[in-house]
């Protein structure tokens, strides 16, 4: 991966350590990239009222790599989905880069997601009939880029995750770890503001998990991508800059791991 190529898909090279660039949540620097204020999420099932998130306050500065941990059912995915503009809070406000995403219509949210969020899922969620290259090109279909430009950018992103030689392979011809790297290439190809990962290593063996986590860490450290990752695995969380714990819908503990 040559730095110049990465620049061409918009990934800015930042060799300097993130601590110089990014204020810690407690610092009184500029507006955080993600500002979550008093967010609650309630599901009503007949008379039953399930409060999945309870008045969550959270700031995520630009360039952060946040790991969200917690027991199953604690609301991690729910919170992540809200930050990513996939779900709306019952209460509270959510702003990303100054945009109140909790006030957007579903069409506005779709456009916003296309421009600002990259997704990595536990089960990769690639389209099985498309080659790695075409899967990576998918988000670019929503841009105004020309066909040649789309192919080029997808190739650059694939190169960045170390799979340039697998561009023509279908997902079922790739290992789990390779599929997840294709998914990461798809997530970064449109140079999103935020990268959200829901248990990205949940389905991978230790070795592939480490490859994927190293890649995510590199994207954060070298390219300044802001990342939020949900994980069950404390080893995975070690790759993040800081770890937050959710328990029954409440953020209970913050720990700075440092870079």
């Amino acid at each position, binding site marked *: 991966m040559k730095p110049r190529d990465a620049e061409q898909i918009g990934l800015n090279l930042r060799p300097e350590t993130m601590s110089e660039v990014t204020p810690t949540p407690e610092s009184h620097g500029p507006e955080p990239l993600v500002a979550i204020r008093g967010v609650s999420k309630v599901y009503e099932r007949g008379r039953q009222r399930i409060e999945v998130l309870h008045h969550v306050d959270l700031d995520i500065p630009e360039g952060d790599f946040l790991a969200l941990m917690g027991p199953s059912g604690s609301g991690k995915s729910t919170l992540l989905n809200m930050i990513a503009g996939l779900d709306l809070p019952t209460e509270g406000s959510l702003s990303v880069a100054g945009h109140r995403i909790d006030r957007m219509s579903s069409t506005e949210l779709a*456009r916003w997601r296309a421009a600002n969020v990259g*997704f990595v899922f536990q089960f990769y*969620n690639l389209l099985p009939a498309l080659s790695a290259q075409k899967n990576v090109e998918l988000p670019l279909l929503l841009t105004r880029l020309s066909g040649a430009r789309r192919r080029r950018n997808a190739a650059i992103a694939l190169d960045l995750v170390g799979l340039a030689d697998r561009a023509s392979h279908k997902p079922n011809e790739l290992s789990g770890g390779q599929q997840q790297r294709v998914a990461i290439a798809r997530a970064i190809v449109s140079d999103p503001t935020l990268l959200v990962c829901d248990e990205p290593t949940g389905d991978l063996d230790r070795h592939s998990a480490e490859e994927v986590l190293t890649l995510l860490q590199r994207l954060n450290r070298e390219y300044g991508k802001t990342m939020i990752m949900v994980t069950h695995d404390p080893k995975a969380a070690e790759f993040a800059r800081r770890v937050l714990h959710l328990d029954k819908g409440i953020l209970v503990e913050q720990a700075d791991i440092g870079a």
Partner: protein
Amino acid sequence: MKYLPLLFAALMRKKTRTLLTLLSVAAAFALFGMLDAVRVAFNAPQSVIGIDRLITSSRLSLIQPLPYADLARIQSTPGVEAVTYASWFGGIYQDPKNFFPNFPVEPESYLDMYPELVLPQAQRQAFLKTRTAAIVGEALADLHGWKVGDKIPLRPTIYPHRDGGEVWTFDLVGIFKAAQPELRGSEKQLLFHHTAFDEGRDIGQGTVGWYIVRVEDASKADQVAQAIDRQFANSAFETRTQSEREFQLSFAKQIGDIGLIVTAIMAAVFFTLVLLTGNTMAQSIRERIPELAVLKTLGFTNRAVLLLVMAEALVLLLLGGLIGLALATLALPVIGEASSGQLDVAMRPESWVLGIGLMSTIGILVGLPPALKAMRLGIVDALAGR
């Protein structure tokens, strides 16, 4: 256009299923193409020449004969220029599948009535003066390898020969051609002497099948037809006088209302097709819910997803349907051949237009329910498999 890979991905996901669906769509539309061509062939005017010709037949039924004595009365009806007559013989040459019309006619007036049947002068003379003579069209002669001088045996289906013969034998003295290529259908008939027919048969002497009338003024054909029928009103043999085209249509209706039969068959076929492709589409979308959720996650709007699924259904229908119509186009000449050229079947532009209209309608019909489902899909629930 740039969404083509997505469309392709959707269709290629289960190749066998897509192929089978395409095949059933193609089969349905091949059937449609062929049946519609048959329907059009039955309803199409066979000739543009006969606008000044009327056919007088029994009011009761086409197979009910009329007295020979009516000839003079029809002839004397104001507005009538010429009259001739013919009957249905229904003879079979060797095998019933060789079917072609064979009519006893009054040679001179019949040939005068149908100038589009072109017969060399010498052969015409031979036909007029030989009682056992027959003439056939060139297409029919080519089909059976007949030439002038041959004897043609026909096995009667209605009229056994008086001399106990199970066969009527005719001397082929002439071969006529249609004046215009589009009238080649009229070359598929055999004509022989009505007098020979009358003398040879045991039943029905002194009657004719129908009269053919040429009017002086084509624009007054309706009035002349009414005047003829009025003469025979309340007689034992009431008549119905129609234009030649109407007559051909009612002749076809003897076989059945082809339009209605075709419509009924096609309705059943398309009903099955809608159920089949509708089910396939629904199943395909159900299986792809996670994929559709991913597309939405990436920022594809609800509308884009709706259109994508609609496009998928339309592509299946249009691709399969066009293949089907193309197959019909290839098959029709074979069918025309099998009908010994009786049916002038070919794919007409109207069939293409109607076919493409049906493809689009069915595509929308089967695409819309799954498309709406895909559009309303909640991302979070779909991703979580709920």
